[in-house]
């Protein structure tokens, strides 16, 4: 039995190794993406451009503006006049305009004395980006109302991510996204290419059993994926400073399952596709959007409408990301992710099963 399995793996490996260009691309892509995104992307709003309209420059107003300019969240873009507000916001030069009333000092005095009076400050926000607008409102109110003094009442602790790095949340997400797509694109052509080239017939009349064909096709890609995984993990740990508290063993174990699952998914796509184009479009293009949107990479799952939360259950990336976040950042023991582990294993087996089954059909 071994006799016809090993040569088969060898043949597949040769296919892979001969195409040096693809091989290099495949290794280069995940590495560059993870480093780039790990450093560059922050979902937080940490820079709000602010312009100020101040009809008079009283000391009181200058104090407030100085407080604004000194705050790390704001970039003070200078004073503008009342008539320029609309244009400044529309052209996107600033995210928010703070308008002081011409009678600011008197109004503030009245308000703090408890006399009802019109507002002394108007905040005008570019709410086209609702997220930035909301964050800007919160930051600006904090500075303008001076509620900052009340902060002393609280002691805040940020567990697992004391420096509040976006990368902690993002690296597991990007890892999950890139592994599944790269692996699926790799194997998605493997069977359909043989169909198109006509070599499939040769395989079908050979005594090699379908299970062996499938595994032989997966093994070389599995090895490549493991190399990629290794490089990515080293980079995440030492370049991006992602903690990996609970040790690297659990992370590797669940990643290997996830890689196998992704390769099996590619094979599944391959057995169902009639042409390479269709297979590649599905693996490389159609899959990007649901995985990006529904697996909690960007948009937290608990925010999704119920229906989509339910759909997200069938997206393997969701489970992988959840497990990796727990293992890497929260540092829970491996036992705590048994559920994710079981789900991923189950999905992998199902993908393999279906593709074997449909491959068998072709034999008849």
């Amino acid at each position, binding site marked *: 039995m071994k006799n016809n399995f090993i040569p088969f793996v060898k043949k597949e490996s040769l296919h892979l190794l001969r195409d040096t260009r693809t091989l290099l691309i495949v290794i280069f892509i995940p590495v560059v993406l993870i480093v780039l995104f790990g450093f560059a992307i922050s979902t937080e709003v940490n820079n709000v451009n602010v312009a100020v309209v101040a009809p008079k420059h009283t000391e009181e107003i200058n104090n407030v503006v100085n407080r604004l300019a000194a705050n790390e969240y704001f970039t003070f873009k200078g004073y503008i006049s009342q008539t320029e507000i609309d244009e400044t916001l529309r052209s996107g030069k600033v995210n928010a305009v703070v308008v002081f009333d011409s009678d600011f000092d008197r109004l503030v005095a009245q308000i703090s004395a408890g006399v009802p009076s019109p507002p002394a400050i108007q905040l005008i926000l570019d709410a086209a980006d609702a997220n930035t607008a909301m964050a800007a409102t919160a930051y600006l109110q904090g500075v303008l109302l001076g509620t900052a003094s009340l902060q002393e009442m609280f002691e805040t602790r940020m567990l697992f991510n004391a420096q509040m790095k976006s990368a902690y*949340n993002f690296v597991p997400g990007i890892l999950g996204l890139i592994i599944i797509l790269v692996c699926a694109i790799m194997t998605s052509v493997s069977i359909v290419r043989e169909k198109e080239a006509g070599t499939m017939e040769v395989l079908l009349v050979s005594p090699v059993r379908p299970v062996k064909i499938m595994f032989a096709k997966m093994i070389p890609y599995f090895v490549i994926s493991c190399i990629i995984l290794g490089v990515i993990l080293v980079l995440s740990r030492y370049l991006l400073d992602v903690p990996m508290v609970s040790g690297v063993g659990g992370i590797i174990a669940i990643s290997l399952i996830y890689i196998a699952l992704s390769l099996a998914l590619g094979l599944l796509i391959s057995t169902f596709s009639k042409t390479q184009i269709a297979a590649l479009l599905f693996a490389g293009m159609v899959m990007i959007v649901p995985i990006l949107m529904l697996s909690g990479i960007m948009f937290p799952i608990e925010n999704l409408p119920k229906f989509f939360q339910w759909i997200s259950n069938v997206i393997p990336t969701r489970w992988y990301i959840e497990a990796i976040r727990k293992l890497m950042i929260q540092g829970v023991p491996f036992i705590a992710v048994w559920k994710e582990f079981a789900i991923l294993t189950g999905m992998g087996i199902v993908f393999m099963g279906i593709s074997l089954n449909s491959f068998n059909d072709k034999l008849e």
Partner: protein
Amino acid sequence: MRTFFVLLQKEFLQIRRNPFLPKLIIIFPILIILVMPLVTTMDVRNLNIAAVDLDRSSASQRILSHLDASEYLSLIYTTSEYNLALQKLEEGAIDVIVQIPKHFERDMTIAAPEKISIIANAVNATKASIGTQYIVQTIAKTFMELRGEKNAAQMSELVTIQNRFNPTLNYKHFMIPALMVILFILLCGFLPALSIVSEKECGTIEQINVTPTSRTLFTLSKLIPYWIIGLLVLVITMPLAHLFYGLASAGSIWLIFLSTFIFILGISGFGITAANFSNTMQQVVFVVFFFIMIFILMGGLLTPIDSMPDWAQKITLFLPPRYYINILRSVYLKGTTFVELWHDFAALAGFAVVFNILAAITYKKQA
């Protein structure tokens, strides 16, 4: 000229006959525009809190009930054991623990009472920081009320807030133009690239090479169908966005069409260039995938460019989608005019010219 039309006809026939492509071109945009806006929300709404109430006084009760009443927060667990709450947090059942110290009510009026602790799960840093802000504000307000400070409520009257362009803070409206951009990147970048490399792999490109057709004409015949498809997708998606999400353009529709057309020119030229450098379909898919990930994740589609570090912001200057996203969002939501956006248009046009020239010169007629 006649050869050109024949070539064009061939391209359309190939697209139509493909068992997968026509379905993809119709269904994919509709699905994305209808379904994805429901998903794209970064609001921190359902923040689950556990309270560790060591005081059990009327003041602490008041704080807890105010927390629960807030529209963003829900108090789902109250205990007097910190460890029990921490366990819930580790399981992921709750996001934040609020601990009210013993004798909180008694010490409320003195200068330095024992502090209220807020312990957040900060794996998602954004969620943790915004959530903590909500909690601090809510408690601070209750606290001022409890201390009988009347001006607490009035202080908040000091400021009025006006949300321009999107008064309801509807994040969907912000995301729909972005989703359109993803569509054009995928449809007009991926498809022409695949179509050229598929000719390479099938060997049919040799047949074209031996004909007197010039390489510009051949490249054009590959591009034009996707330009038409792109514009068609725009024509389908704009009314859909209006019908289902009430999003109509605040600015000129012609500007949207113009920018879309320039962008499609650029991105399809980019696809062809990638194809010219690749030998197999798989290779080109990898290369295009690589750039698409960068376009989507760094072009300001999902995260603000302003929040990136400086070096990364410089990289984004070389990403055509950056300019297109800005144009589409500004025109759609703010009604920005051409004059205010001319440098974005100029950048976009520049990319379109460069990519198409690259596409034409990198296509070699030799095998």
